[in-house]
């Protein structure tokens, strides 16, 4: 260790590590020489919980994993369970699932934009301004979801076989109004941020994750798309009628913080497009293949195993279930995108300044509940 080096322990109690992540930085002056992420502070044993609870009872639990996108977690689990059981999900339920997941994606990206700007600009500066704006718009989306599911963050709306609740009356009009408002506000933020030379200076060329690195580390979602690889589970392996909708996969070029920002902004617009299409083309019919599962142990898939992947706002989230024919899974395994994203810090962060650590970490958008599970 050279004399001017110091070891700076960032976290687990630090304002901008997005939860309980600890980064061990070796710093020479302002320059960061190496980064070592330390995880595990939020481990709650989700995989073991899966073995202890029934299929129906486990869906609300997986909400808590990546708490910003609970619909995507449920989505992955339900698809895997249905694959073992061989259930065909009714078309209306498929569309409703897409609506829930996409609304959730917008809300999650708004949280990301707000908190990332908070990291860049500080709680006592311009960063808070955009943070407050983002949360104002997120409120509109959460109001919609609250009206539908009764919950604002952890919905528990999907269940193996279908979906728990149908849309409430008047939802279409409200959703259209809110989504159009959010769409116009996204453009406003885009002007506010990318028209600001300080913002561009802080994000261009910072935290470059090349396409090779993304592939080697198993990164997914906006990070890999920012590096120019148009991989999106919704297009690559369509599930739940995603092939019915017309949407594009935005990609970046350099894979720096700015590209990831542009990709996520465009993804919000595409999510609004998908939701609008799903609302317009919503077919009639049942939302469950048969009457509700009246008891939590009523769902018993046969022996077998299945894996299913969905595109969460953070990337590819996969659930792998082994069933032994009882009402409880024999084994559940989760593959989560934030876990891969956090380990990328080791490779893309060294060489940058201390101030860039938070902006790079923020642009990777990890949710610590998703990392530690």
């Amino acid at each position: 260790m050279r004399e001017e080096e110091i070891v700076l322990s960032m976290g687990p109690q630090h304002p901008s590590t997005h939860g309980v992540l600890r980064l061990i930085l070796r710093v020479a002056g302002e320059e960061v020489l190496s980064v070592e992420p330390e995880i595990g502070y939020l481990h709650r044993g989700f995989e073991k919980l899966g073995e202890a609870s029934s299929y129906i009872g486990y869906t609300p639990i997986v909400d808590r994993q990546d708490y910003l996108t609970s619909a995507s977690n449920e989505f992955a689990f339900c698809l895997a369970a249905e694959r073992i059981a061989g259930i065909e999900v009714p078309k209306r339920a498929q569309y409703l699932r897409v609506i829930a997941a996409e609304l959730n994606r917008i809300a999650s990206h708004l949280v990301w934009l707000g908190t990332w700007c908070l990291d860049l600009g500080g709680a006592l500066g311009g960063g808070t301004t955009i943070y407050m704006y983002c949360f104002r718009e997120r409120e509109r989306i959460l109001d919609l979801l609250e009206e539908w599911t009764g919950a604002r963050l952890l919905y528990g709306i999907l269940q193996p076989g279908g979906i728990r609740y149908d849309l409430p009356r008047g939802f279409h009009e409200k959703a259209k109004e809110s989504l159009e408002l959010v769409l116009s506000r996204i453009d406003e933020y885009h002007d506010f941020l990318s028209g600001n030379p300080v913002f561009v200076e802080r994000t261009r060329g910072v935290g470059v994750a090349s396409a090779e690195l993304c592939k080697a580390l198993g990164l997914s979602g906006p990070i890999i798309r920012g590096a120019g690889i148009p991989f999106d589970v919704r297009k690559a392996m369509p599930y739940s009628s995603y092939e019915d909708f017309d949407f594009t996969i935005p990609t970046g070029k350099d894979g720096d913080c700015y590209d990831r920002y542009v990709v996520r902004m465009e993804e919000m617009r595409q999510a609004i497009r998908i939701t609008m299409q799903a609302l317009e083309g919503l077919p009639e019919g049942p939302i469950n293949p048969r009457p509700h599962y009246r008891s939590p142990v009523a769902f018993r898939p046969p022996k077998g195993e299945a894996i299913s992947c969905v595109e969460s706002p953070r990337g590819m989230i996969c659930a792998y279930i082994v069933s032994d024919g009882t009402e409880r899974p024999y084994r559940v395994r989760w593959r989560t995108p934030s876990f891969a994203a956090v380990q990328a810090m080791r490779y893309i962060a060294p060489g940058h300044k201390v101030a860039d650590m938070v902006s790079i970490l923020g642009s990777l958008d990890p949710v610590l509940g998703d990392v530690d599970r």
Partner: protein
Amino acid sequence: MIADIWTWIWAFVGGAILAFIAILIIAYLTWIERKFAGRAQSRIGPYWVGRPHGWLQPIADVIKIMLKEDIVPEDADKISFNLAPMFVFVPAMMLFAPIPISEGLVLSDLTLGLLYFLAVSSLSAIGIFMAGWGSNSKYAMLSGMRTVAQMISYEVPLVLTLIVPALSYGSFKLSEIVELQKGGWFLTKPFIGQTTFLLFLLAGLAELKKPPFDVPEAESELVAGFSVEYSGMKFAFFYAAEYAHLLAVSALGAVLFLGGWDGPFIPGFLWFFLKTFFLLFLILWIRWSFIRVRIDQIIGFGWKFLFPLSILNLAIAGLIVL
């Protein structure tokens, strides 16, 4: 002899009155800023303590912070840790001495008032570095280093910029500069008035360590920078010094560029406060709409952009005066 005693009494009583007024304004400045930020962010801001609009909030804050426990870290360098808040706060309060509030209403009308202001305002870097060093915390230390680097980089352009009004009016005496602006404010001087004002805003913001140049206390990476280990009144001194500095620089801007107490209809001191608050709101507006600049970018901006420009500006002003 008698006159000497009166000078001393005037210095103490006048200084105390001025400091009291300044502290009162500073306390309410926090409220104004929070209200302003609230409006900028589609929030309400303080509301419940002293309805309507939380006008008792600053007083509640002061009482709270006085009752807080004063924690001194065990491994801190006690002398510099305990002295640092004073080294920051006292120079910040001393800044108000040469500022003319109205005609004849000035605590100490120094012949070299402008130079005194610049000299005293750079003293706070010492206090901040003492805090950073004495806290024995890595975050505070990094922040102290950043402060010194930033202050040194922006001292030079700021001095070179503020020399320009002095050069144009041929005086360092602030009241005389105001007196000479009666015909037309410095800001309205063709070309150099505006360029100098812009340079002053940029260099002044960086010198104040206000966002977007607030890297020394960048709370998203350095938690709270040099003040991270402080609590209670010691922290309050840092906080008050920051606002005192802000107020003093706005007042200086009003005196140098906007003609101080000069204005029609209402009394001079009201004009002075109006202009000071106009500059203050300008700074707050910038603060709440920009994200933070990185430390290397700040230093680069200071040396590569602001420094040559301020020299050029000074040269042009010199030519015009000649």
